[in-house]
């Protein structure tokens, strides 16, 4: 996201941002969205791609092996590209003229509507070291879901959304394959890797309910031909997950009644920290650019 857009970018060089730091300029104000149902539907996907991308990018320079470091960064980059196109489109549908940068950097936490699974930290605890087992499992369950979503959206009545999906479906196919490979390799690996995969699977499983929990937003989308009601993807997704987990010799976790709700703005405690890091530059230096 390199396009400068904010008209408030007028701080003189060295002046307000000088080394003394005694007279910081005003921070960027948050934007307030009034999304209609179409915009909200697209924004849920845009935010999921954006926040998931951010989590994957945290692995850059820290992955267990160099090849995987590169793979995770590539996956993050594809997701960021997808989210840029979706954010731009959501901004158009919302109608107040917000662009991708404003939507990413100037919204408050409650206005982000990604799925909770995307925002959970890579490690077992916030700030803890990344857990590769959790990372590859999350990548697998989300990529499998995203692949199905893009396949449906490629037939959307919304030509721009269909075009974005037509590209993304090709990318998601590779993401899913790569993640599934790791799930099988580590699940059906050593005693230690299997235990760690099992623990990670049980930890993330309750959050998968949110991927198939339909509400007024996606019912409207299904009625108008914008995109599928999320609940309708469950069967195909579960078949894919069961197949890969069986190959990985990982037992299916028990059903969970837990319902996370980040896609309606109720986030975990981890989201605020993530946004603080992601938004700090644009908040402190309105319109700042590289």
């Amino acid at each position, binding site marked *: 996201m390199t396009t400068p857009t904010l008209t408030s970018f007028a701080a003189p060089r060295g002046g307000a941002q000088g080394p003394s730091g005694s007279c910081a300029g005003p921070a960027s104000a948050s934007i307030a969205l009034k999304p209609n149902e179409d915009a909200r539907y697209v924004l849920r996907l845009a935010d999921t791609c954006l926040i998931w991308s951010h989590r994957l990018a945290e692995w850059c320079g820290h992955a267990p092996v160099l090849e995987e470091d590169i793979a995770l960064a590539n996956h993050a980059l594809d997701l960021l*590209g997808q989210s840029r196109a979706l954010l731009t489109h959501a901004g158009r549908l919302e109608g107040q003229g917000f662009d991708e940068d404003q939507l990413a950097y100037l919204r408050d936490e409650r206005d982000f509507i990604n799925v909770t699974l995307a925002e959970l930290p890579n490690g077992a605890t916030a700030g803890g070291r990344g857990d590769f087992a959790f990372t590859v499992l999350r990548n697998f369950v989300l990529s499998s879901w995203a692949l199905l979503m893009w396949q449906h959206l490629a037939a959307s009545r919304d030509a721009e959304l269909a075009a974005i999906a037509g590209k993304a479906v090709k990318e998601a196919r590779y993401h899913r394959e790569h993640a599934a490979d790791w799930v099988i390799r580590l699940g059906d690996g050593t005693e230690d890797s299997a235990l760690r995969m099992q623990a990670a699977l049980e930890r993330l499983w309750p959050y998968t309910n949110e991927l198939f929990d339909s509400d007024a937003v996606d019912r409207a989308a299904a009625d108008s031909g914008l995109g599928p009601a999320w609940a309708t993807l469950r069967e195909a997704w579960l078949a894919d997950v069961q197949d890969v987990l069986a190959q990985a010799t990982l037992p299916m976790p028990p059903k969970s009644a837990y319902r996370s709700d980040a896609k309606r703005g109720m986030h975990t405690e981890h989201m605020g920290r993530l946004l603080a890091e992601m938004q700090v530059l644009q908040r402190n230096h309105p319109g700042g650019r590289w």
Partner: protein
Amino acid sequence: MSALESTDARAAEAWRVLAGVLDPEVPALSVVELGIVRGIEPLPDGTLEVVLTPTYSGCPATEVIEASIVEALHGAGLGPLYVRTQRAPAWTTDWISAEGRRKLREYGIAPPGPLAEAVPIRMVRRVLVPCPRCSSEATERLSGFGATACKALYRCTACREPFEYFKPI
């Protein structure tokens, strides 16, 4: 490329100029051979419209490529220009020309197979990707992703050289 080529002299000249603009991340290929220039047409107002289709959603070279194209066409006196990004139909490696594939192989990158035959690449399974250096089919995948989103990492067990494979997409 001929199917896309216009009969207009200015457009034809633009195609020739763009045949010399290289992809910054795979500098063996021109943007035309890569298949991302989808059309060049003069508009009624005298502007030359150039239609581009990006390769990957997150490809960081997209903006650089667009800037290089604009610079080359302006440099050749073919402006004013209007660059339009067209998402659909989505770019596919099937649009890389035969000449482009030959150049990729020469450069040391195994060219993509046809998309119709693309099977998911799995760690546990061997996919036939001949070595671009020694042509041996005794190769194995090291990683599904390489230095750029469009490539995977392989190695040849015959000549022992590592190489990149341009993934069909």
